[in-house]
């Protein structure tokens, strides 16, 4: 899989629901539209939570990778239009 270039990196390893989504939302608030946040989690619930969160908040989950013990998500900040 092609490596994506991120503007910001967020390490959520070891965190469980709801903290990855809480931290992602806090980080995303500091980015500009179009910028990409790379998130690494170990919480399997993120597989469902990240795309749902992105869709609800007008952001885009560009890509995600299941690396077994860790999950990697690339989220692109939307233009602020909700849902």
């Amino acid at each position, binding site marked *: 899989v092609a490596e994506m270039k991120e503007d910001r990196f967020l390490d959520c390893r*070891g*965190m*469980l*629901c*709801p*903290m990855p*989504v*809480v931290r*992602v*939302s*806090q980080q995303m608030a500091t980015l500009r539209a179009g910028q990409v946040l790379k998130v690494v989690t170990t919480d399997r619930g993120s597989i469902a939570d990240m795309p749902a*969160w992105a869709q*609800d*908040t*007008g952001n885009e989950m560009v890509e995600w990778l299941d690396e077994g013990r860790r999950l990697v998500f690339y989220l692109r900040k939307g233009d602020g*239009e*909700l*849902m």
Partner: protein
Amino acid sequence: MMSVDTNRSTGLVATEEEVREIVRQELERARRQDATARRACIIASKGTLDWAYPPLILGSAAAAAGMDAAIFFTFYGLNIIHKDFKRRLKVSPVGNPAMPMPVPMADAFTGLPGMKGMATSMMKTKFRKKGVAGIDELLEVCRESGVRLIACGMTIEVFGFRETDFQDGVEFGGAGAFMSEARRSHVTLFI
């Protein structure tokens, strides 16, 4: 394919598919403008350590998803926003056959002195080891992300609490305030 004449004066004609697309877009626009879809209203009525988690987790998740969230704490749920919540929130194996115990135990023994303390510290240790956020951390997240924490005035009165017994930022309200919030919220939960 059936055609719909949408504008007789200009003679423009839209296909059924185009009309459906327009309707779909309009519905989507209306849905986006529906403020109630972005509001969550949760009642927290239980005052044990295990039941303190769901309202705080869902409230903070709602705020993270860009929603306006409010949690109403009533009856035993007031424990969660009490200044002394760390000491007050406990979990008991009594009446909870689903609670995992270190050794198999007859129901009659689960009520013995010390059991509540043991179960509480067991749960705290387990949650910490697994990486679950503590109640204090979740309360902090709720406060930081603008989740309204509202204490039920009637039960404060009944239990003999004072408003000063509660954490900073806690608001006070009743069933009327809850209903006013709830009728403007798609998500309403009683926990």
